[in-house]
């Protein structure tokens, strides 16, 4: 599981990887909880022979579902992000524009699901940083605004573009994100969604934990 560990920040300020959260029990349609690492969910669809990865990173988390046009001022307002350079401080304001207490409600490893244009507006890298340090392990959205999308990969927060995901996910669904295949599985429904592909160098950067971690490991930038 080296690659899964490497998705998380290795600095001492970051808590260790959490255990997978319990699946939602509120839905009568809830299937028995599959093990994300051993079931057929992770081996399907077939592995791509061109995959550059020797190990595939699997994330599992409970879904928080949001609507369209969740902008960066909602994700972290300027007046908070501009007064600190500490990621753990930024995390206290994650999704403040919708719920100032949201950061207290997030379980480690939870996954954000959203509609169109997630992360529109500002160039603030603090937006994906705040979400990541608040415990969010991945974002799956119908589409992303372009600067946020770049920034998410930069900070090592998986951002997967999956048209149709919002309407097929309800709050509390347990999702499995496979970063090798770039797929998202809704364990309640058994749906497997293929996310929009990204260039190999972006995937490598993501699997190394972001741009800073990539550089520390390789002493070069992914595109140089």
């Amino acid at each position, binding site marked *: 599981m080296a690659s899964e560990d490497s998705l998380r920040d290795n600095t001492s300020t970051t808590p260790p990887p959490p255990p997978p959260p319990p699946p939602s029990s509120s839905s009568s349609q809830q299937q028995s909880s599959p093990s994300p690492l051993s079931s057929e969910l992770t081996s399907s669809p077939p592995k791509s022979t061109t995959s550059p990865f020797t190990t595939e990173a699997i994330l599992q988390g409970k879904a928080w579902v949001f609507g369209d*046009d969740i*902008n960066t*001022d*909602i994700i972290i*307002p*300027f*007046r908070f*992000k*501009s*007064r*600190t*350079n500490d990621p753990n401080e930024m995390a206290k304001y994650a999704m*403040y*524009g919708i719920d*100032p207490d949201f950061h207290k409600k997030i379980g480690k490893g939870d996954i954000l699901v959203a509609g*169109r*244009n997630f992360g*529109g*507006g*500002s*160039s*603030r*890298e*603090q937006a994906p*940083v705040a979400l990541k340090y608040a415990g969010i392990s991945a974002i799956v959205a119908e*589409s992303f*605004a*372009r*600067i946020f999308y*770049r*920034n998410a990969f*930069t*900070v090592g927060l998986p951002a997967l573009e999956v048209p149709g995901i919002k309407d097929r996910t309800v709050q509390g669904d347990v999702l499995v994100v496979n970063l090798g295949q770039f797929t998202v599985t809704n364990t309640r429904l058994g749906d497997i969604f293929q996310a929009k592909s990204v*260039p190999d*160098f972006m995937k490598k950067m993501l699997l190394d934990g*972001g*741009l*800073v971690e990539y*550089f*520390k490991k390789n002493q070069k*930038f992914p*595109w*140089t």
Partner: protein
Amino acid sequence: MSTYSLSSPSSQNQVAKILDNDSMTFAEKAISIKSKRSQSHDANRRNDSSSKMSMAGDIAVVDVDLAMAQDSTGPLAIRSLNEMRIDKLYDPSKVLLVIDHTFPAADEKVANLHAMMRKFASKHDCMLIEGSISHQHILENLAYPGMMILGGDSHTCQAGCLGAFATGIGSTEIASIWATGQIWLKVPETVKVLLSGNFKKGVFARDLILDFIGKLGEDGANYRALEWTFSDDIARRDLTMDSRACITNASMECGAKLSVFPFDKLTEKYINDNPRRIKEDSALEIHPGSSATYVDEINIDCIGIESMVSGPDHPDVVRPVSEIAGMEIDQAFIGSATNGRIEDLEIAARILKGRKIHRNTRCIVTPASVRVYEEAIRRGYVEIYLESGAVFTNATCGACVGTHLGALGEDEICISSSSRNFVGRMGALSSKVYLSSPATAAASAIEGKIASPEGYL
């Protein structure tokens, strides 16, 4: 000082070939010229090693001429450099730090981050500007046609008004440019916009771009370039450089990666009137090819545009002033990078002259730069504002981002010529921001409610 000389294409064969190409958009040409390596998404072109052209959808690694970060993105960029243990900048003369967002520092925490930036700029001997908004400083002093500008600020796209390729990215990617001089870019598809006709009385560039965003949607130009051109000389005559800058700045609100007015006589005149140092052979007249491929073509007749108001909460919720006139306001804000240039301050002064701000309303005027500030004093506008009861602040992004000099309390309503109206943008989550032209904001300040500027002009 020689301020403006176009490079001679004959001395640069490859560049000349790209400039002359008839089938490339502005974005394709600008990126191809700066491209060191390009990977085509098209297999046929990928195998053609002689092709140096980067076309829409390709990914290119480009040389960057200017990489900027401001006081809410710079500290994080510096932190990332430190974490990577990078101690040497590729070329400090291409690095710009700007302290503009919370300037002067509103509290101790901000002051500490500002100090961090000053220390970094001093250590590396890079450019540091305090007290002018970055986008206006770049427009007035640094940008030139064909320049490749990356900024840790989404509104960096404003410099497209001078025919530069300019776009926003995040802090750590800016740090990587400071370290290497390069960045990767995906070549955007382009939407061509053709402008014609003249504005009605009381209608301005801001109304045009608000109307445009309302039609295109909040993500209507996400990943795309907007190429603004003219289908007649009337529109070309009426859209000053200040107006062009308003349009290219606000294009971010429909997600545009690039928003550009390709080089023309006005570009040349502006640069001659506002001299700057340009390295020999750097400035390039990039004209889109006549058979370039566009994903969309939009024609706008300016005469059909009304005074518009956008908001609250989303930039694409747009309607004519007449449909919302009469809504009571607590504050009117005129200025910022989107509308804090001298043409904007002039129209505000014309409307406010000899009149009083409504007693239930605050009015704040914020210029975009020190140069605009000085010009407003010289022309007597500041006196007019103060006599009307308005506040005139230093150049800053303060009110626009709700950090200082005009933040909103709970349930307050503001009409503003600033850039955004997102939830809680200017303060309390329950406050509401409506965006308009400076003229509409000034008229509203007098009436204490949203009002059309038409009767005041």
